[in-house]
């Protein structure tokens, strides 16, 4: 089941098409901008929304990231993919927003965001327990530090390699690997007790693994 494809809209652009659109966008070509936005918006939004779990904030961050990208498009380095550049900007904006939120409200209250979002129809898991485990997995991901969470999301959700993630997070590759290692260790630590409590955990894991 290819859920991502149905949710994330346009197919990714090939390199030459992307560069052509960037060149046009430098000349304020609205059609090129539209094509670049449509090609990246849902992927970017999926990432930012998972970082924030707030639809309004995530949409604003995406908008801000695109505007910053177009505003500074003359400085775009064609050695990188446009998506890498865009995610780098979005990650920076996300971190700043999270810091501001933390400064205002102390610790983040993730449950507030989780409860404010409507629960979409579940497609992956068939049983109630599998659904529950899936929720626990996301809750655990949300408890990771922002760099760890970003690393996990970019690695698994966006299927990016450590090198590309390092570019986006503006950290060395070794740091990305460290984030990933610590994130997995934390997830294991958080998820193992929950799984222990569930009856038929092997079956649940099997169902979730597809």
């Amino acid at each position, binding site marked *: *089941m290819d*859920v*991502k494809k*149905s*949710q994330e809209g346009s197919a990714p652009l090939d390199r030459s098409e992307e560069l052509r659109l960037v060149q046009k966008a430098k000349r*304020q070509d*609205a059609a090129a*901008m*539209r094509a670049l*936005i*449509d090609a990246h*918006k*849902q992927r970017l*939004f*999926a990432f930012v*929304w*998972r970082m924030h779990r707030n*639809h309004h904030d995530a*949409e604003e961050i*995406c*908008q801000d990231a*695109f*505007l910053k990208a*177009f*505003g500074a498009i003359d400085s775009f380095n064609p050695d990188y993919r446009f998506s890498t550049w865009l995610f780098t900007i979005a990650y920076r904006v996300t971190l700043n927003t999270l810091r501001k939120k933390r400064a205002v409200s102390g610790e983040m209250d993730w449950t507030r965001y989780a409860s404010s*979002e*409507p*629960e*979409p129809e579940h*497609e*992956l898991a068939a049983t109630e327990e599998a659904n529950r*485990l*899936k929720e626990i*997995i*996301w809750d*655990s*991901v949300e408890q990771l530090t922002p760099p760890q969470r970003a690393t*996990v*999301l970019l690695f*698994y*959700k966006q*299927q990016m390699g450590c090198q590309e993630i390092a570019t986006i997070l503006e950290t060395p590759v070794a740091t990305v*690997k460290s984030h*990933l*290692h610590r994130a*997995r260790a934390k*997830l*294991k630590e958080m*998820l*193992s007790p929950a*799984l222990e409590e569930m009856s038929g*955990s*092997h079956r649940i*894991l099997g169902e*979730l*693994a*597809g």
Partner: protein
Amino acid sequence: MNCEQSQNLFDAYLDKSLSGSLATEFGAHQLACGRCRRELALLEVTGHVIATDSETPLLSDEFTERLVECATEKPARRPLRFSRALWVGLPAAMAACLILFVWLNGDETSEPADPANDGPRVLGVQDEVKSSEELLEHVLEALKFDPNNADLKRKADLLRSRSNKIINDTRDGASLLQDYSEDAIKELIGSVPTGANSNATDTDGGAVSESHSGSQNEAMQRQDNGSGDSGTDERPAEEL
């Protein structure tokens, strides 16, 4: 291979970078150890759920159009900003008056009070004003920007005629000078950009403020009352 060694290789296994005899050993341990197998399965499932979960809500329909509109609006705004900058920089007389005002205002606020001068505080500029000639210079400088301002000319004449007397006067006399100069300069700042002539008349030479913080306002008020045009001259200076 024990459990600790096996768990140290989880990352390499999940990143598909485990190979050779180590991979074989790792696989053998998973077959034999339920706990490691379970933990590894949990991590694999976690990665799978993150990768395939479709729970992300969709962006609003107008997202793209709104963005394109914002992004392409920028060039249209640039000339506005440029023209605004021109407006700010264009009138040399206004800029000169602003500098003059800032200079005077800075004198009022930045200089600490002279501890030796422990008497009634009349104006903050008192320590800076050394002679009536200096004040006269300021008025004359302002006159360069508005040479036809009769009121300024009259103020200059007044300062010129009184300078010798006031500079050698008592502290109260010095404060009187400052009342005059403060007022005169506020008037000229207010009158130069607009070109409006002030109707303020000269204050009585005996008007000496003895109050502490309110002395300046009182002095201004006295002058305003005397001129019959209160408030009109003071406002532009504050706005500047």
